[in-house]
């Protein structure tokens, strides 16, 4: 596959999704970049912003199987992974494994923070290993496979915040903001009028091969060693225990308990490569790194009590980080 072909297909996917979703161009691009980078995405936003519609449209454009799981406090792990079911055929009774919704190619885990940790951990293995083990038997996921989880920042009562280990497995964390007045007007035109547009399929039925080629092409994008060094400096600067006595980024020492793991650096590099390819380039630039730093690191920084007390968020810390860490 050529970079131009990638760019064309990428742009087509974006355009198809934008037929249904108004605004959120950056979110759409980041989700697609995460998809081709092989990662999972956590979407955070208030209800009614079209998160579910977004994922559905994406699955239609990609031509992938899609399943939605509404996480509730009484949801069991077997409801996600599947379970053994007693069946009878030819006079014989046997247990048959019935696959759960996690076995779709695109899984929407809606309000994942409402389910118990036990249920949340059921998604963990699937996200990381691309396989599920039930009653000692391992079942692999279909390729490509992506989990898009959503969480509501408003309803904190009766919720189970995602553990750090699970948060770290998400490639990007994207914040969905409410639409602007013009966007809202457009949404109303599309949804309250007659004739809603349809999303066309970009990839054919056997499009998995093409998607695989695009994923492979993404990993071949060139990145200069100085840029890699810059990413390393960025991630290393997030560790409060590794800082000198008078660190250049004082916010790290003041507000962080733990910094980003190596997965954060991987997410930045792969995300920057995907971003470059989406713009039709075959090399990574500093702007690509800057555009993916926030989605890649904001959910990987663990804040301390002082940050919570002073209402300091991870994005503020990342702003200071990007400003003060030198590029060369």
């Amino acid at each position: 596959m050529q970079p131009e072909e990638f760019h064309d297909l990428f742009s087509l996917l974006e355009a198809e999704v934008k037929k249904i979703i108004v605004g959120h161009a950056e979110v759409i691009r980041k989700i697609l970049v995460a998809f081709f980078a092989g990662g999972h995405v956590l979407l955070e936003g208030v209800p009614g912003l079209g998160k579910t519609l977004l994922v559905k449209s994406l699955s239609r454009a990609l031509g992938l199987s899609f399943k939605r799981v509404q996480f509730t406090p009484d949801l069991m792990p077997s409801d996600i992974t599947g379970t053994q079911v007693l069946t009878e055929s030819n006079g014989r009774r046997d247990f048959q494994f019935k696959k759960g919704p996690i076995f779709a190619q695109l899984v929407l885990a809606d309000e994942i923070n409402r389910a118990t940790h036990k249920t949340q951990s059921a998604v963990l293995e699937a996200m990381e290993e691309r396989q599920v083990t039930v009653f000692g038997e391992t079942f692999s996921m279909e390729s490509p496979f992506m989990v898009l989880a959503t969480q509501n920042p408003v309803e904190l009562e009766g919720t189970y915040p995602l553990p750090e280990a699970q948060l770290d497995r998400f490639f990007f964390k994207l914040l969905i903001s409410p639409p602007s007045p013009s966007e809202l007007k457009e949404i109303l035109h599309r949804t309250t009028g007659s004739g809603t547009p349809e999303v066309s399929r970009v990839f054919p039925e056997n499009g998995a091969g093409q998607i695989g080629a695009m994923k492979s092409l993404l990993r071949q994008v060139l990145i200069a060693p100085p840029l890699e060094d810059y990413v390393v400096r960025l991630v290393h600067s997030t560790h409060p225990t590794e800082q000198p006595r008078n660190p250049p980024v004082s916010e790290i020492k003041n507000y962080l308990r733990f910094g980003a793991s190596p997965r954060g650096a991987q997410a930045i590099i792969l995300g920057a490569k995907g971003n470059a390819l989406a713009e039709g380039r075959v090399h990574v630039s500093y702007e690509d790194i800057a555009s993916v730093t926030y989605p890649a690191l904001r959910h990987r920084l663990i804040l301390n009590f002082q940050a919570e007390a002073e209402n300091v968020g991870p994005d503020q810390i990342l702003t200071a980080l990007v400003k003060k860490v030198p590029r060369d």
Partner: protein
Amino acid sequence: MIQPSFQDPAERPERIITQVITRLKTHALRDLLLMALPPLAALFYVGFFLHRAAWLSLEFFALTSLAMAGSLLVAGLLRFRFSAASRSLAARLVDQKAAAKDRFLTLATIDPSKAPSFFVERLRQEAATLVKRIHFKKEFPYRIKRSFFVSIVVSVCIILLFHLLWSIAYRSSTPARPSEDLRLLARKIEQAAVFPDLARKLESAAVKLQDENISEAEKQALIQELIKNLEQQLAAGSAGDARDDLLRQVRDALQGLERDFQKGSAQKGAGGIKSNLPDHREGQGTGSEKGEGGEAKHSQLQDSKNQELRGEKSGKEKEPEPGKKQNEGRGDRNQGTERRPEQAKQEKEEKGSKEKAESGSKGFKRQDEEIPQGPPPERFHKAGAEGKQGVKAARYVVVQLPDEFEAAAGEGVSGKGKRVRAKTPASNAPLRSPDTPGAAGEKQLLPLEYRGLIR
């Protein structure tokens, strides 16, 4: 499909990075030279100045200059090495100028053997179109840095400070020993590579001056002999203008040495004694009038003295046989006892006016006065010593005449031409010493010794 190209390294767009690096290195070298040359020139100037003042020999000066230049060169090379632009920095500059979004940085730093060739060729294609945006000389011009101006200011300050310290040291320094002066002179002549004999003579004179077994008079005679030789050579006038200047310099220096010698011997107390008492003239008319005119007379006297000296000097140079006449003139001037009466009178008036003008001064010092040889003049006599002009520092006291003299004096005063002659002295009791407090104001009976003084 993009056809692979840029097989020839000379055609590759990253070649511009190499050109930028070369240009930046040239700029760095220029900066270095501009920064290093002013202090080097300043130090060279200082060294040359010291060499001209005979503080540094030619070899030492040359060695020091070479060492300074060498050390500056080494320091410059080291600094140049660290300040030279790296490949990534040059690539970033090119990206900035061409708005290339880090294409040149990627091309400059990646290992093409490990990267997909198709991607590298595609990157080169894109970079090649962007290279055309760069006007090399316009985008990377040379600009003089602030360090150059700082360097110039520092160098000028060094030179000014040196001159300031030199002048302070020159004023406050104690006179060098005569032997050292002669040695410096000898070295100067030696460096000029002329008059080797003279240089040797000066060197030997320096040794003799240090010798304590040789008397002061012999040392002075030695210096005078050297001066005489120089006068002869100057009068001969065969050496040439530059060499004449050198001879004159040496002669002036020797004359200065001679004066210092005579001053030193005079202060030691041989013959003349410097009087600490002011030379009052209370009995001789109003001193204030003399004081007012005295300053003008003093300056006139100075000028006339200077003119005389200059006239004598020029006269010595012009005369075909300067030796005899010069010596005579010098002897006349230096004897002191056979001074012209007009000069002596002028000097006394000048002393009086000077003392009036400078009430705090203890003695009278004239810069251009030549210290005569032989017995010192009367002005160096101690108080009470008798000279041709009378008793030095003699004071006048009010004398009470005896009754018989008073009566005779009254008759004498009324008529003109009548003189009072004392018949019998009233007392031969000596007067108190004039420096006794109240001695001037006391009334004493006329002693025998003053009989002839009353007119």
